[in-house]
């Protein structure tokens, strides 16, 4: 008997076109269902329709049942306990100041006794290993830990269904993988039914039992992951989200598409015959623009040095990518270079002169343009139009207008900045910074929260900017992005920069901290690092 059943579900917001049309699928108990679609296709709305407390206002027709019982007839108690919902942002879901209280919150709401709460909280804390930071304040946890606490808090209520809305969007790749595997473990060990909306199909596709594809509110596909790879064409928007093994194989065949790297390697060994090395392009000679010499920085005298003897030369007109794991101090290094933080030791020279000899306001308008990790923190006005044009001299208006057209965000101009999507917010922030034509663009984690389509757009934009002579330095933990866009790559580890090379030798010489394309084709193809490299040999 089906656990959750959606029959002819249609939903529309008041006074708007129908958002969801005729959604029809069934989830067996203990199955993992992934809902996939481009942004705006209605997948979050569909997920929220499955949870009565979160269903948005609007008209809904069709029937959604859980265990044969319609969602409308569930009591508040049942609805809160049977269905657990994990939101996208780890930060906003946490409402109390201590981890132990967060775990107990849901149980308090449903009126459990002191003893009952104590036992369930202990049980769940033990299962997830949270007992190590049980008394910590929630604001001191990392993103991955916060999301884990959220899941644990929901599991303490003993749900039978877990609904997850892009839970790894705000997490770095390692935390994301760890999170998804924890959910898989829950599904397998407890038999939980999991319904998840995700972009990172590379990791999620092999874990799923069924896939539902939504496009503009209509259900395009409902079946197994293997068959999905057969149903998607290279022209559809979903193609970019598929795992690299699938995309590579789809160029030659329609059946038996490999989904994981391991399956893909078998395919590559038999199907790709041309194994010549790729030529390594010589780096063009450029003038040095920023020279950082043995910078060292720590926040307090008792703390360890975050940046230690960090030396780096940034050349004019290049695109330098600094990769490293989450929390390694890459952003701090960037701030030291740009004088936002003053290093305790070391010097930085900008165009031959010391950084301290520049005035602050000209430093940040004509020399450095800094895009923060969270572009939202840049916005101060009520409309995008005001945001871009307020307080800017008329001589720069033409340039802003040009950028608006090139980044194609005309439709956002009258909206509130917070109402725009993640990719649009980033474009707006980028224009704000490019207004003053800074010589060096510093981007801090530009791919956070972006889906694959937006990432592709960003790559094109950055490459265009570099063609026009803009110097760009970006800091990221997204290896595929860095391999595709950069001219030089450097690894940040233990406070220093290691191994500054062109992307091809950089990624080709690594075995695990490298792009999926390289992991897929090594050792068959010695130095393929991007999807395009692999495709050129198919």
């Amino acid at each position, binding site marked *: 008997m089906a656990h959750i059943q959606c029959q002819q579900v249609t939903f529309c917001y008041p006074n708007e076109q129908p958002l969801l049309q005729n959604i029809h699928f069934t989830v067996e108990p203990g199955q993992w269902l992934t809902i996939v679609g481009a942004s705006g296709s209605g997948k979050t709305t569909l997920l929220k329709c499955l949870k009565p407390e979160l269903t948005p206002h609007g008209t809904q027709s069709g029937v959604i049942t859980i265990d044969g019982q319609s969602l409308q007839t569930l009591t508040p108690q049942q609805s809160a306990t049977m269905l*657990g919902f994990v*939101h996208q942002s780890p930060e906003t879901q946490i*409402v109390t100041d201590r981890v132990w209280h967060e775990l107990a919150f849901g149980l308090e709401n449903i009126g459990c006794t002191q003893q009952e709460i104590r036992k369930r909280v202990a049980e769940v804390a033990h299962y997830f290993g949270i007992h190590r930071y049980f008394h910590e304040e929630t604001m001191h946890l990392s993103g991955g830990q916060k999301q884990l606490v959220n899941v644990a808090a929901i599991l303490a209520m003993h749900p039978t269904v877990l609904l997850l809305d892009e839970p790894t969007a705000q997490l770095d790749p390692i935390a994301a993988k760890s999170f998804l595997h924890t959910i898989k473990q829950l599904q397998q060990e407890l038999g939980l039914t999991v319904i998840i909306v995700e972009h990172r199909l590379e990791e999620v596709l092999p874990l799923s039992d069924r896939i539902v594809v939504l496009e503009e509110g209509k259900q395009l596909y409902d079946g197994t992951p293997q068959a999905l790879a057969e149903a998607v064409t290279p022209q559809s928007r979903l193609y970019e989200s598929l795992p690299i093994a699938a995309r590579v194989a789809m160029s030659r065949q329609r059946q038996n598409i490999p989904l994981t790297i391991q399956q893909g390697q078998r395919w590559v060994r038999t199907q790709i015959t041309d194994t010549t090395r790729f030529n390594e392009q010589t780096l063009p000679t450029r003038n040095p623009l920023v020279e950082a010499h043995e910078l060292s920085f720590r926040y307090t005298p008792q703390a360890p040095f975050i940046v230690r003897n960090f030396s780096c030369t940034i050349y004019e007109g290049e695109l330098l990518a600094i990769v490293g794991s989450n929390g390694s101090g890459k952003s701090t290094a960037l701030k030291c270079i740009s004088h936002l933080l003053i290093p305790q030791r070391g010097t930085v020279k900008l165009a031959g002169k010391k950084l301290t000899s520049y005035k602050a*306001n000209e430093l940040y308008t004509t020399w450095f343009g800094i895009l923060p990790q969270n572009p939202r*923190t*840049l916005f101060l006005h009520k409309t995008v139009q005001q945001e871009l044009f307020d307080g800017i001299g008329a001589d720069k208006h033409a340039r802003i207008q040009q950028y608006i057209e090139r980044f194609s965000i005309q439709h956002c101009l009258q909206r509130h900045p917070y109402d725009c999507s993640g990719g649009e917010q980033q474009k707006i922030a980028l224009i704000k910074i490019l207004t003053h034509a800074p010589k060096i663009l510093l981007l801090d984690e530009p791919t956070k929260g972006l889906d694959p389509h937006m990432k592709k757009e960003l790559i094109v934009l950055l490459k265009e900017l570099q063609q026009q002579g803009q110097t760009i330095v970006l800091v990221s933990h997204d290896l595929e992005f860095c391999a595709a866009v950069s001219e030089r790559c450097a690894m940040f580890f233990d406070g220093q920069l290691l191994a500054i090379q062109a992307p091809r030798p950089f990624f080709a010489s690594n075995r695990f901290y490298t792009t999926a394309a390289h992991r897929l084709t090594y050792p068959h193809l010695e130095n393929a690092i991007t999807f395009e490299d692999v495709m050129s040999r198919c």
Partner: protein
Amino acid sequence: MSELSTYHPFVLCSFFVVLLACTMFFMHPVLLVISFVAAFTLLCRIKGKTAWKQLYWIVPVILLSAVINPMFSHNGEHPILYVNSNAITLEAIAYGFAIGTLLATMMLWCQIFQLTMTSDAFYYLCSKGSPTFALLLSMTLRFVPLFKMQLLQMIAAQRAIGQDVAQGSYIRRLRLAFRILSMMITWALEQAIEGADAMRARGYGDQKRTTFSIYTMTSQDRAALYALGTFIGLLVIMTLMDSTYYAYYPTFSTMQVAPLHLILYSGYALFFFIPAWQEGRFQKQWHIYNVSK
């Protein structure tokens, strides 16, 4: 933090209420001095060497009080000198000292209270009174640092595009600050909506809530409560025996030095030093443990 934080919040709270009340209501110099010394010792035990910095404000407060009181109060039978036909009396000076000591002691006990009562303990006490208020307290403690962090991030982001809140003309800075604040409020409201959704999804609603606490009453808590009960008994006896009463005007009362009263005063002192003794005991335990490793 402090070793005393291991006690049950109810015990801690009762202790502090009683200690503060004794300090406030009894003007007897011996009792005041006992309270002051006990508070200072405890603070030294908790904070270590830095507690001696407190003397920087304690001594001025006491001296200031001793100087100001005689200027306004001219009662007393032992005038020292006359200023504009107003008598500066010995009693007034002594009373000034007493009031100064009282103020300083109150502040010291309040500081100790802040150091030993954690937010968890506050939460527990509030939850016994009003569960809704307790949840509100917990959420405030969560959101205030979060908002502060977001505000700092916004200021830093603006600084990185050349708009510094700390430099430039006043008007420009004020406008920038207002805009940042306004956007902060928008952001906070958005957070609130999403947070409210998350709370609703976890069953927060009109039904009755229970509260969870991480504290249990231990034998050391019970022992402390017995000590407190004994002390209240002692206080009753002292009041009946007139040991607590001391007047400064019209002149000093006679100091009670009969053995009975001395015993009562020592009992009082004993109780006041219990927290300092406990704090020292735990710290010594820890020190012994460290040394023996």
